[in-house]
């Protein structure tokens, strides 16, 4: 369904070293599957996700979605193709001065649905999928975070896309709300066969939702495996993040005997005791994962 071939994205800023956010990534996402992409902040996973709908145009490589090579399209054709690729974000990105129904209607307006009644009907339909039926005429400020994300999902689904891209969709939500939102994503995938790509740093999210896992580090996909492997006895991921997915979350050293330094290399598979490294990023990551249990 989605096929990335040798995709690289380099940001060139004047007076600064060019930054390679995505470095020669090739990835195949089968139709109807849920692809998880996990990595620390700055690993390039959000840029890779934006490469799929060309919000960020790759500097090298090709991107194909549903058999169309997006990287070869002109602007107008690309906009057309984007109606088939929904996207949700960490910050929800709703229009604050529009009601819930108007926000959902917007994607249909952009997709060229001229008749307003038709738009409102389809918006209500999409909102029904995420069980928002009584708050269609309120403004986003009156909604909780979870409700906002559900509205964003409805907005993305209203045009009946084949692909849903999710950029850290639950990072701003508490664990209980996270579970609710993930359930909707799972339902949408099962009921409509929508291919889902989800980028996150939350281990729990990957474990709960993904069919396949790609681990990103320094712009590269360093490891790929089916999520079912995580439940298999004796599965031994190569990378520290992969190992983390198997861990019980965070484990601290509270004996006070540990010297105050954090030089242990988490990339070194031998050093990476699941749940035991001292990098602050690991702490934040495992902490959010631990809360769900």
């Amino acid at each position, binding site marked *: 369904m989605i096929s990335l071939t040798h995709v690289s994205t380099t940001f060139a800023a004047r007076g600064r070293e060019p930054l390679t956010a995505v470095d020669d990534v090739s990835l195949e996402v089968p139709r109807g599957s849920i692809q998880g992409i996990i990595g620390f902040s700055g690993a390039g996973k959000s840029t890779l996700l934006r490469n799929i709908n060309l*919000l960020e145009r790759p500097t090298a490589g090709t991107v194909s979605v549903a058999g169309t090579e997006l990287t070869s399209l002109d602007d107008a054709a690309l906009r057309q193709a*984007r109606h088939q690729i929904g996207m949700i974000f960490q910050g929800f990105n709703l*229009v*604050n*001065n529009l009601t819930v129904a108007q926000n959902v209607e917007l994607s249909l307006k*952009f*997709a060229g649905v001229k008749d307003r009644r038709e738009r409102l009907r389809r918006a209500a339909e999409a909102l029904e999928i995420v069980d928002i039926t009584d708050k269609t005429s309120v403004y986003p400020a009156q909604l909780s975070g979870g409700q906002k994300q559900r509205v964003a999902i409805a907005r993305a689904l209203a045009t009946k896309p084949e692909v849903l891209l999710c950029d850290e969709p639950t990072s701003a939500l508490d664990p209980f709300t996270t579970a609710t939102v993930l359930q909707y994503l799972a339902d949408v995938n099962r009921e409509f066969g929508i291919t889902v790509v989800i980028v996150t740093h939350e281990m729990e999210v990957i474990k709960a939702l993904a069919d396949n896992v790609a681990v990103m580090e320094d712009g590269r996909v360093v490891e790929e495996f089916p999520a079912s492997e995580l439940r298999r006895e004796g599965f031994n991921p190569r990378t520290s993040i992969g190992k983390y997915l198997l861990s019980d979350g965070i484990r601290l050293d509270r004996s006070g005997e540990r010297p105050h330094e954090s030089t242990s290399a988490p990339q070194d598979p031998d050093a990476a005791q699941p749940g035991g490294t001292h990098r602050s990023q690991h702490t934040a990551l495992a902490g959010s994962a631990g809360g769900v249990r």
Partner: protein
Amino acid sequence: MNLVIERLPEINQAMLETFAMIAVAIPVAVLLGTPLGIWLFVHAPDGLAPRPRSHAIVSGLVNMIRSFPFLILLIAIIPFTRFVVGTSVGTAAVIVPLTINAIPYFARLVEQNITQLGSGAVEASRAMGATRGQIIRNVLLVDAKPGLIGSITITTVSFISYSAMSGLVGGGGIGDLAIRYGYYRYETPTMIAAIVLMVLLVSLVQFTGTRVARASDRRITA
């Protein structure tokens, strides 16, 4: 008091002149300054469609007009004013430089309002396949509306104050009346009456502007 009553026809006339200046300058500034402000936002070096070179030129021009003290602009563009309204004295002659000054003033406020919105909803719209025009109309102007109304208020208040300098070319207006009678003729009561009227006018504009802006703002819970 008698003196003020005696001056009522002049005060009346002056208020009408002030209204005329604001009634032309502000709508024209909003009409032309809004697209100019959007243009500055869209074509900024990190904007939706960067055009660094022409942006630098237009932005420089906007800065140039804005850096003129109004009194000097009033004089400096007299030939242009004469070309537009056929005279360099009177109320019409003040309206031209007021408007010329108000356009870039308002454009900068528009640009600032839109820039402050953050890129989230714009990015979502791009992902939905929206064109640049659709994003401007359906997202940016919608979310910037309360801010834009506030900007219209600020511009109106500022230009009521600028209009006081119109006396230099015989433009009249309530501020000019205060200067002519209060300063040159030592008619303090007339000056006070003019000042009170100006304060009332500005308060009314500010009050209305704040009300309308708040009513159109859904970013905070009602």
